[in-house]
């Protein structure tokens, strides 16, 4: 890797550019017309305008980003977070264009983007999961049968959802019937995929995430956990590291399980 194009903007683009400079890598920033004077543009070694202000016309415009690599000779792309970072299609296009996509493989991205499949993999590597339906629940009758195993309240979750979106709660049978149809419609509209699965609702949980890093040689490490319990409308407000509730033993166990899980994807 000699020259990295950062397919993002704002603070994450600046951080990536800084890390690249520390590693002696050249950097290319991309920007929309609205961001011509942004810090990441001034900070990078080169900068290419890739479109108009709306993200769909610039930061999400795959063709222009790949072309920017072509004309600058960039041999790697760092997608940052958001935008195209969890787009399996983009990762696949990078691969077929001979560009180093600094992130998971396209297969891993699509596997983990489907929450229901992600849970199936977890079970296969003995990674504990929240009790819930074994996979997608296609209709309300099937759903009602499943709920009997776990009890109310129950989450109805969009398989293609994320970021706190696509989640509905049912406290009884009547509510479940109402919410099930609504959840599928909402999932279709928001994520283009109506599939939902069920999950037992845990009351007053701690939401803890573990950051795992892997390289193409099969080495995986975890970088500790972040306690993301403080949320508003299921969106994180702050992340605490380390988590105040995890013992050292649980931290080690957690980390090992997460590495094992990611390695299997």
């Amino acid at each position, binding site marked *: 890797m000699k020259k990295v194009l950062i397919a993002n903007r704002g603070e994450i683009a600046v951080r990536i550019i800084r890390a690249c400079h520390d590693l002696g890598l050249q950097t290319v920033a991309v920007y929309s*017309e609205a961001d011509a004077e942004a810090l990441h543009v001034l900070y990078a070694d080169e900068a*290419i*305008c890739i*479109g108009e202000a709306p993200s769909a016309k610039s930061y999400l415009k795959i063709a222009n980003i790949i072309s920017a690599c072509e004309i600058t000779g960039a041999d790697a792309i760092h997608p940052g977070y958001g935008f195209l970072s969890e787009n399996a299609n983009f990762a696949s296009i990078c691969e077929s264009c001979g560009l180093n996509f600094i992130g998971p493989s396209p297969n891993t991205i699509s596997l983990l983007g489907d929450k229901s499949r992600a849970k199936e993999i977890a079970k296969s590597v003995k990674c504990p999961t929240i009790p819930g339906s074994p996979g997608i629940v296609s209709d309300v009758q099937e759903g009602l049968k499943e709920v009997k195993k776990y009890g109310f309240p129950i989450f109805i979750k969009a398989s293609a959802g994320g970021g706190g979106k696509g989640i509905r709660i049912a406290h009884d049978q009547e509510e479940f019937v109402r919410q099930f149809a609504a959840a599928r419609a909402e999932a279709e509209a928001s994520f283009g995929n109506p599939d939902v699965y069920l999950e037992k609702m845990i009351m007053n949980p701690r939401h803890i995430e573990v950051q795992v890093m892997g390289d193409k040689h099969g080495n995986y490490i975890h970088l500790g956990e972040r306690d993301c319990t403080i949320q508003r409308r299921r969106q994180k407000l702050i992340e605490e590291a380390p988590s105040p509730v995890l013992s050292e033993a649980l931290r080690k166990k957690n980390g090992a399980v997460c590495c094992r899980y990611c390695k299997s994807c």
Partner: protein
Amino acid sequence: MEFKQIKELMAAMERAGLKKLSVKEKDGFELTLEKADEVHPHTQSHPSFHPVYHPPVIHMKETHAPQISSKSSAEQEKKEEKVEGRYVTSPMVGTFYSSPSPDDPIFVKVGDRVEENTVLCIIEAMKVMNEVKSGVSGVVAEICVSNGHPVEFGTKMFRIV
């Protein structure tokens, strides 16, 4: 940047107790000033500066492709203030070609009359050759990009009056 300004920066670094200072100007000029580490704790506390000069870095958005025109640069500068006509800008990122293939004649030259649907150039992106149409009718007054030169979104390519 003049040497006097560099000396002022060095003095400012000393006052603020900074070890390293990097400056990057809009015209591409870059300068990094870094204090040498002290080896012996008992040496004098006068720091030594080692100015490090980086060659100017050219941002794509600041480079102007050579203009295919016989006018002098002074006249061109005056003209830029009161520009006639409309620019046809690049709708994508890629490489500009002025002819359909290396063996073919160029699409248009200065002085040619064009209509809205006249193809002015090709932009190659991801191995796909994209024809770019004028979008306006008039006469080609200026061709702003050289054949084979990379273009980004919004790069001015032709001026039509």
